[in-house]
């Protein structure tokens, strides 16, 4: 795990939210790496801290109430948490770009999509207006929007949901970033459109050989796209490994539970498995392993000791001392 190999390395990141007299530990010691050109997935239920981790990388956490309590976010060896706001602006959009979940609300309704795509380019580069227009058209063409010249003058509400998300992706691609963070980009879309968008992201990633941090709760998507997978639960990463290891040989009870809950061919006609209980409130996490109240393998030490990462193979780690072997 040397820094030189990694494009992005998140180390022991902690983000807390303060509300009244409570502290919600939304992200509580998260570490993962992204190497150049690979697709890393961050999987977990809603509310487990995936989106907060992603926003923290770009330092977009609203503060207050959000507060980065510790850790490092190394991008090409530079700690993003140490940069001042002006330097951070040069990273955003230019080196790390983000695609958000809701394409409808994430696009500004009063500007044309041409304006919104071109804006990022003009901020980070010196471009002639004619050149800018050409690049915008090319971007729209790249993300598969028909007759892009006309679309430039359209407003977001004139496009369909899928097209809007394509525009969001075009905006993210505008400055050829090294890393794209996609925060559940397909959740708000129809199933058929989901597949198209997913394929689009995959093909762009391969063509431009950029890295993608893909955030989702959908294991089907993970299987489709991921090189490596990080499973998150209650603000911590409970298991990480490459896609094959995670799907074929899950070592954490939570991952096992998630996989068992997938509807599959072999179990047709039988009742779907579900994990009992619900995700703990980030302000009232149980002591010890955060998963122990829901875990069928839990032993007495789970209630008191926060588990360390255990190594299971090449790059395959899990936070469960019980299922070590």
């Amino acid at each position, binding site marked *: 795990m040397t820094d030189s190999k990694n494009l992005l390395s998140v180390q022991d990141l902690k983000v807390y939210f303060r509300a009244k007299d409570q502290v919600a530990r939304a992200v509580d010691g998260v570490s993962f790496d992204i190497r150049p050109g690979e697709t890393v997935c961050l999987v977990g239920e809603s509310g487990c801290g995936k989106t907060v981790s992603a926003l923290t990388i*770009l330092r977009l956490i609203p503060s207050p109430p959000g507060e980065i309590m510790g850790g490092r976010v190394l991008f090409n060896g530079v700690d993003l948490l140490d940069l001042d706001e002006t330097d951070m*602006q040069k*990273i955003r959009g230019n080196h790390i770009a*983000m695609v958000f979940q809701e394409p409808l609300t994430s696009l*500004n309704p009063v*500007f044309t999509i041409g304006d919104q795509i071109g*804006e990022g380019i003009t*901020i980070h580069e010196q471009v002639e207006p004619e050149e800018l227009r050409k690049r915008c058209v090319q971007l729209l063409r790249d993300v598969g929007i028909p007759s892009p010249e006309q679309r430039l003058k359209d407003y977001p509400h004139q496009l369909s949901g899928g097209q809007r998300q394509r525009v*969001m992706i075009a905006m993210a691609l505008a400055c050829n970033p090294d890393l794209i963070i996609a925060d559940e980009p397909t959740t708000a879309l129809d199933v058929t459109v989901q597949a198209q968008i997913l394929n689009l992201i995959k093909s762009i990633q391969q063509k431009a050989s950029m890295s993608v941090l893909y955030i989702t709760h959908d294991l089907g998507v993970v299987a489709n796209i991921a090189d490596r997978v990080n499973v998150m639960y209650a603000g911590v990463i409970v298991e990480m490994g490459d896609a094959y290891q995670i799907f074929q040989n899950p070592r954490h009870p939570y991952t096992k539970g998630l996989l068992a809950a997938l509807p599959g061919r072999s179990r047709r006609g039988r009742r779907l498995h579900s994990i009992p209980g619900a995700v703990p409130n980030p302000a009232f996490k149980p002591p010890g392993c955060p998963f122990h109240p829901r875990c069928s393998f839990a032993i007495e030490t789970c209630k008191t000791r926060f588990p360390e990462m255990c190594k299971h193979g090449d790059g395959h780690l899990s936070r469960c001392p019980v299922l070590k072997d």
Partner: protein
Amino acid sequence: MFSFIGRSIVQKIITLFFVSVVSFLIIHLAPGEPSQVDPMNPKFTPEMVERFQKEFHLDKPLYVQYLYFYRDLFTGKIVSWKDSQSVLTKIWERFLNSLPLFIVGTILTWTLSFPVGIRSAIFRGGIYDRSATFVSYLLISIPGFFFAYILIILVVTTLHVPVIGMETFGLGASSWGTTLMDRIWHLLIPSVLGATGGIAVLSRYVRSQMLEVEGQDYVRTAKAKGLPPEQVHYKHALRNALLPFVTMFGLILPGLIGGSVIIESIFSWPGMGRMAYEAILARDYPVILTVNFVAAVLVLVGTFISDLLYLVVDPRIRL
């Protein structure tokens, strides 16, 4: 588009008709007769009352009176009961007097409340925001006439400039510069008074609107693009936050009449509000009704303008 405009005009004319009926009824069904203004006055003989009633059709049934009244209004022949002058000319003169007050007040309101509101929203919770909030509550809550007296005392005792009326009496022969300064002083204090309430309310509204927009996803998107904060706030957020104010811009027109009664009375400013007040005191029905009618027309024209402006500004509305 054109069908929308047509429909809206028809609708507004119908509304105006009902407004005219309702205001006519309110005035005429209220107890008391205009001819009884001064029953103790020995000059008011029964014959005079009768002649008076004849002249203004007061002996006819109500609906005939209504028709006569609005016929006179639209042909411009309507006259005041008090001094038999043409009401429209009177209103026009007073309107010209009110206009500078209104214009200065509006300019003050709109130029001050936006910077204050936007700054409060961006630095939410800071000292600036908190003091602006408190001051605006204070200004909303202070009775206009009380504030007027405080200002008068302040200006008169510290600066020794007279502020009552439109100009200082007997200053006619002075130099050009003195006259100008005099007029400005006389104009400034009532305008500031007229604007304070507006500034307080509008800046609060700007602030909440900005806060609402700052929490939207597209503002986050703009930040994620690496835009500097000024562009995020003043381009992406502000442009959206401004949309509702376009509607309000049409609604400042009615302010020409409504809000100025008290201030114009205190400052003896011979404007529309004061005229309306005097007309009410004298039970001069034609003037009251005409002022009311003009006010209603201004409201309707204002809403119409703001509807049109909204069409122009918000790309999501296309008819």
